[in-house]
């Protein structure tokens, strides 16, 4: 494995350096039918789950076949995508904002062969490589984050629970029987690198134990004032500790004030808080982003804790499946999950979904908590 230089010379890094050029320009990559009809589209229709047609005022049409997949993707798989795009789509392809892949063709007769090709490709172990679906009033791909694949603060994995959940929801990826679109997401810690805070259903990795303090190394590895300042609940105080006869500067964590947010750990690696029994998933529901009908909504906590039962998180996927089915059966056409819960009342949501309401679900974070309590006698028994 010999080092091969690209031409970069570490001794004179500025020589010949190209910077600040940004991304490639969008129109370099537009398929011709897109380039030609940009801004001229008249309407669209979903022909079947995963297949859209957009019609232009020029009379042109573009057919889109959307396929799901893991956004954690090898170059092998990307090359396979390129092969398909070369074969069917003149070498163009795109990704959606939810990590689906879209193959576009400019006439109807190209659609069927494309779909057949896509659906025929499977991994050796049997899962689809390119399942067609994810449109309309169904369940599309789960947006998610790194989890145990790459991050240092997760309280759960990302790719694993997402695979497990999508297996359970697979039929609805390929169908459009929901009352409205249903967006599922996952973030592996409450930094929430994704739209978990406003998804119809969200899995959120959450710690439940205050950080350990690695006294021996803390002063060496961290800036104590920064660690203290990082804590939103002021649970961290400076402290002197005796170790092997030496007095070291360190910190003390007031466990009863800690809400396990991990912000101190972000600032200081000597305050780890992950723990097999403590960590797990918070299930949130009822958020939305669109302004359609109602304003965007935050997701609300529906289940305070579900364990990290690797590799398939069955408690989590069961709860999700249950909520999805009750919602599908009970909500009105066009009604997003949160709109439904608000219409029937959260007391009914918990009853219908057979979820226990625990004290953890009552807001107690700062002043705004008050506004989520019930200031009316209007409630259902």
């Amino acid at each position, binding site marked *: 494995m010999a080092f091969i230089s690209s031409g970069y010379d570490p001794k004179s890094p500025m020589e010949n350096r190209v910077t600040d050029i940004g991304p490639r320009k*969008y129109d370099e990559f537009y398929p011709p039918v897109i380039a030609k009809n940009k801004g001229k589209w008249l309407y669209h229709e979903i022909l079947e789950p995963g297949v859209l047609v957009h019609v232009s005022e020029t009379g042109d049409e573009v057919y889109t076949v959307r396929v799901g997949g893991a956004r954690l*993707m090898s*170059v092998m798989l990307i090359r396979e995508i390129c092969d398909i795009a070369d074969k069917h789509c003149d070498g163009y392809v795109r990704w959606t904002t939810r990590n689906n892949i879209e193959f576009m063709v400019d006439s109807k007769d190209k659609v069927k062969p494309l779909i057949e090709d896509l659906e025929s490709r499977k991994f050796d172990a049997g899962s689809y490589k390119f399942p067609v679906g994810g449109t*309309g009033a169904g369940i599309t791909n789960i947006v998610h984050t790194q989890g145990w694949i790459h991050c*240092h603060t997760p309280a759960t994995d990302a790719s694993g629970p997402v695979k497990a959940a999508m297996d359970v929801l*697979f039929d609805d990826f390929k169908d459009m029987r929901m009352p409205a679109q249903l967006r599922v997401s996952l973030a592996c810690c409450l930094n*929430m690198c994704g739209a978990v805070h406003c998804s119809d259903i969200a899995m959120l990795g959450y710690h439940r134990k205050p950080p350990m303090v690695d006294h021996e190394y803390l002063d060496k590895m961290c800036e104590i004032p920064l660690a203290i300042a990082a804590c939103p609940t002021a649970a961290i105080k400076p402290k002197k500790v005796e170790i092997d006869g030496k007095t070291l500067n360190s910190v003390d964590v007031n466990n009863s004030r800690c809400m396990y947010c991990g912000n101190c750990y972000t600032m200081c690696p000597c305050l780890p808080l992950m723990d097999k029994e403590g960590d797990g998933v918070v299930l949130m529901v009822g958020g939305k982003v669109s302004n359609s009908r109602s304003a965007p909504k935050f997701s609300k906590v529906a289940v305070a804790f579900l364990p990290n039962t690797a*590799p398939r998180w069955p408690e989590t996927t069961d709860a999700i499946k249950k909520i999805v089915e009750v919602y599908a059966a009970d909500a009105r056409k066009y009604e997003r999950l949160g709109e439904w819960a608000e219409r029937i009342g959260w007391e009914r949501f918990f009853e219908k979904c057979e979820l226990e309401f625990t004290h953890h679900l009552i807001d107690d974070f700062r002043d705004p908590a008050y506004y989520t309590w019930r200031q009316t006698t209007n409630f259902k028994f």
Partner: protein
Amino acid sequence: MAKNKTPLLDQLESGPWPSFVSDMKQQAEARAKNENNVEYQIPVDVVDDLLGVLELSYVDGETHWKHGGIVGVFGYGGGVIGRYCDQPEMFPGVAHFHTMRVAQPGGKFYKTDYLRQLCDLWDFRGSGLTNMHGSTGDIILLGTTTPQLEEIFFELTHKMDQDLGGSGSNLRTPADCIGQARCEWACYDTQDLCYQLTIDYQDELHRPAFPYKFKFKFDGCPNCCVASIARADMAFVGTWKDDIRIDQDAVKAYVEGDVKPNGNAHAGRDWGPFDIAKEVLDLCPTECMRYENGKLEINNRECVRCMHCINVMPRALRPGVHGGLSILVGAKAPILDGAQMGSLLIPFVEVNKESGYEEIKNVIEPIWDWWMEEGKNRERLGELMKRKGFQALLEAVGVDAMPQHVSEPRHNPYIFWKEEEVPGGFEMDINAFRKRHLR
């Protein structure tokens, strides 16, 4: 045969949904075989070891990654996330496993030659694993070693005409919805605005001068397909000023069942025949629509342009022709003060390509100035707004207060007055007062 046993992960190979484990395994195997004789610049078993460390996490229920050190490319303050394994001896292939963020093209359209080039580069100098795409929008190249960072950057910029994206206290890689490229509802050209601002603000993107991260997202209409309102410090959401365009014949076609509502999005179930009253008029949040004698009327003055009716009847209704955008500011994730969605700052601004989007920059730049002036370290714009008050933001941008800024006026009466607003100012004479009011 696989280097590490992964019995737990193996269970994720079953089931219909594409298995990332299967994909990783095929990649690990291909690397091991190396049929094309690539001179891998990082360990051949990088993917094997990634599977191994992930399996260990599945057993332990804990991550095995340490805090990232500060790694990067010369002159840039972002674009690379350093990462080290906390069991490097067990998994030497991922002892260093840094991520590179590559700025994605607008609308995430690609030509395959570009993608293949990227694959070759990443096979050669990295793990061969990616995220297509990261949550912010970047192409994520997942896992390489420190010495490769400059090499990759060099090849990207020199051979692919391609720059890194953002990380750190920078402008992050802006992202857009597909917009006019393929959507009939886009009220402005999201791709062009996104591209132009990205280019014009390269310095802000690469050289950390901000108190914390800052995100732009561009949605062509209020459906918000790139979730700007939830995930961007500054969300640019298309809207229009004039009337919804109505094709009355198409309305009839919907009513008569000739066209399926909502672009056929509800085809998976029999919802019964289309009912314009129930499905459109009654769901309009402002009740500003009437359907009488086969004619649809919209009281556009009362319409809030929520998109619902247009979504349901795309062949009959279209946004007005006078497009522009609303700017909402301050969205962010929950750390530290709770999540925020964007708050409406500019109800409508023209999107003027000819001017170089000057009208929009005239909003962006004063906000940055204010935030750089007043923001604390690691304080997002939304948090600064909360701390200083919406009024302070308005002053910084030079915008007058208007009822559109609020969902409702304040219900507490704790009104601050500026001294110059109050006749006589704040200085009162206690002795004069005590003449009127004895002690």
